[in-house]
């Protein structure tokens, strides 16, 4: 938080906060430390991954693009060669380099498990061989089906080509066979990964990671005037609970219900603090804002503005017109009709519901300095609605026989959690997945803009006396500075991505510093933050925020509006205004 001193405003007789800034804030305030720490990891990621250019990258890209150009001009559907060329580009990843694989092993979260939680941390050679043998049978079967589907797809494509692609029924038949092959191909590649697992012992790596993170955050704490030793001792506990949260989220049932690490982290923290109590020696490491802000700076690097054009104009309308409209309408509804007592709770729930769930809630809550209980409530509501919508929406779309492009856009624009969008979209079809995922990704990019706007609005309009005009200098003093790091990382990485072009950007940046560094640590930092929230929250206080069920009413009404507007806009854009784009998907 920014330094502030209370001053008596003699004109209005209202006590107001007057913020101050000084040069020492650069090393004394956690907002700046979040920027320094976040950027140090991003720079490290760039240094590690940029030299890891996949062998023959340019040749592969050029060859694939020439095939794509030729196939694009040849057939009225995506041919087998078209898909194979895209697959070739997909394999180009800096994270596949030896150092990338080492980093992945070192920073891995607890592994997936079903009935034995120890599987999350250790699996010996014997158990691995047994699992692989089981997976191999499924893989062989899936591989044979994929080969069969490929032959059928090629035969149908040749038949359509022999007719000069002038026979619509042959074209449709070829397109369907190719879709079936893609589905079989995906199943085979997933089955392959289950047949080629390796034994692991994650425990020493987790201990190493804990030490590294304790030092990483401890340095900042120490410079900010706290005890390094006390922080490190407390951090071991916070980290341990974070590991438990990741372990619970890796369980098969938790995945099916869409209950992620954030929910588990809050729950475990809450249980500890409200039963046996959070030990006093842990409190120096219960630093919610410090972890969240550092995580948000990393998140900024993952927000690449170039991606908003991934699905053309319709995607922008569905994600960037409907979403802010719903956000503002829900916020106003919360203020005027539901009369939510806290503006920060209102905006956090509105952003959480309209943008993309937990990540939007974190960014917005940090930008407007919402209370930890408010963020907890928003995350809880998002969790419940995500689980329901992930199950109900694909079922409804199937039941009414809605076109999958429309259904995909609808789900992408409305289901909060990103993982749930992938599950619901893929469950319908690959086409629905591509549209749903792309719309959701464009919506994810919106987080940066929303966090920035909320931060400015709060400094200029909310955190001041009614009618008082806040000068720009005052806005600067009050402005949460980590947001600058968040936006700065986004702008820098977006520029780099655009300069490199989408293919090289995908291989070296997206599949390099972003997924190989930023994503990993950001996940851990958010998890630590949610553990801290739980460890410092009292159930009774939390209950007060839910009084009268107003947050639930707000979420329900906002989500209903979101469902209606998104479906309407998706239909208008994909079927009335830009049907030619829909036809190509």
């Amino acid at each position, binding site marked *: 938080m920014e330094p502030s001193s209370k001053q008596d405003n003699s004109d209005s007789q209202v006590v107001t906060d007057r913020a101050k800034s000084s040069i020492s804030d650069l090393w004394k305030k956690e907002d700046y430390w979040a920027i320094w720490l976040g950027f140090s990891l991003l720079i490290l990621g760039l240094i590690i991954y940029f030299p890891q250019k996949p062998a023959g990258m340019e040749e592969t890209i050029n060859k694939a693009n020439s095939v*794509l*150009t030729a*196939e*694009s*001009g040849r*057939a*009225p559907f*995506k041919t087998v060669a*078209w898909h194979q060329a*895209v697959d070739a*580009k*997909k394999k180009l990843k800096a994270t596949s380099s030896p150092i990338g694989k080492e980093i992945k092993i070192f920073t891995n979260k607890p592994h997936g498990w079903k009935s034995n939680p120890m599987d999350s941390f250790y699996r010996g050679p014997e158990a691995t061989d047994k699992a692989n043998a089981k997976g191999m049978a499924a893989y062989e079967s899936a591989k044979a089906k994929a080969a069969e589907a490929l032959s059928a797809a090629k035969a149908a494509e040749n038949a359509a080509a022999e007719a000069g692609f*002038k026979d*619509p029924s042959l074209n449709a038949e070829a397109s369907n066979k190719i879709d079936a092959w893609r589905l079989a191909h*995906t199943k085979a590649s*997933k089955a392959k990964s289950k047949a080629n697992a390796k034994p692991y012992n994650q425990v020493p790596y987790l201990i190493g990671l804990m030490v590294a993170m304790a030092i990483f955050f401890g340095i900042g704490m120490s410079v900010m005037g706290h005890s390094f030793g006390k922080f490190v001792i407390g951090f071991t506990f916070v980290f341990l609970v974070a590991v438990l949260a990741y372990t*619970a989220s890796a*369980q*098969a*049932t*938790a*995945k*099916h219900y*869409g*209950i*992620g690490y954030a929910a588990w982290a809050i*729950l475990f923290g809450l249980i*500890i603090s*409200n*039963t*046996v109590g959070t030990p006093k020696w842990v409190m120096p490491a219960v630093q919610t804002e410090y972890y969240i802000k550092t995580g948000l700076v990393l998140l900024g690097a*993952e927000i690449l503005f170039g*991606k908003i054009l*991934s*699905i053309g104009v319709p995607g922008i309308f569905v994600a960037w017109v409907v979403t802010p409209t719903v956000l503002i309408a829900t916020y106003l509804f919360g203020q005027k009709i539901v009369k939510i007592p806290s503006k920060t709770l209102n905006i956090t729930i509105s952003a959480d519901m309209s943008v*993309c769930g*937990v990540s939007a809630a974190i960014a917005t809550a940090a930008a407007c300095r919402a209370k930890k209980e408010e963020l907890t409530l928003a995350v809880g509501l998002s969790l419940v609605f995500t689980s329901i919508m992930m*199950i109900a929406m694909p079922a409804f779309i199937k039941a009414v026989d809605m076109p999958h492009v429309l259904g995909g856009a609808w789900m992408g624009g409305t289901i909060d*959690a*990103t*993982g749930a969008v*992938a*599950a619901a*979209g*893929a*469950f319908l079809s690959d086409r629905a*997945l*591509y549209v749903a*995922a792309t719309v*959701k*990704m464009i919506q*994810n990019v919106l987080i940066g803009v929303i966090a920035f706007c909320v931060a400015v609005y709060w400094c200029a309009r909310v955190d001041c006396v009614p009618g008082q005009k806040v000068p720009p200098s005052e806005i600067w003093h009050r402005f949460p500075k980590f947001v600058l790091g968040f936006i700065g990382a986004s702008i820098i990485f977006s520029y780099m991505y655009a300069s490199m072009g989408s293919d090289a950007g*995908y291989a070296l940046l*997206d599949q390099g510093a*972003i997924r190989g560094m930023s994503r990993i640590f*950001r*996940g851990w930092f958010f998890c630590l933050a949610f553990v801290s929230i739980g460890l410092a929250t009292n159930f009774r206080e939390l209950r007060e925020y839910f009084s009268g069920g107003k947050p639930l009413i707000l979420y329900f009404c906002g989500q209903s509006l979101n469902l209606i507007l998104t479906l309407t806009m998706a239909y208008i854009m994909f079927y009335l205004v830009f049907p*030619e784009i829909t036809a*190509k*998907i």
Partner: protein
Amino acid sequence: MTIYRNRCADLQCIPDMSGKTEKKIKGWVGLLISVITIIIFLFVIGPWGEKLPGFQPLADFIDERGIEANMYFYTEVEEFSEAEINMNNTMQFPPRDLSQQELGK
């Protein structure tokens, strides 16, 4: 704040720790109940719910495809990477439109 009640009886005057002990016991019992509840959800109620006709196909599908259905941002889910590269190339290299003449109309 912990309050030590002092019940001085007879000659022995020992600070009564019963309030604190009771609180501690309640805390540990609460922790135990919470852990048991979570275990019951993960291993009994949750799996039972997954077997409901409307849910089971989705749960099986998530397992089969190994989808990280409980992640929060697009960079955490592999399917997003696949979708993105596919859509990018679809927009950059779209299948050609057939003219009416080509379709023989």
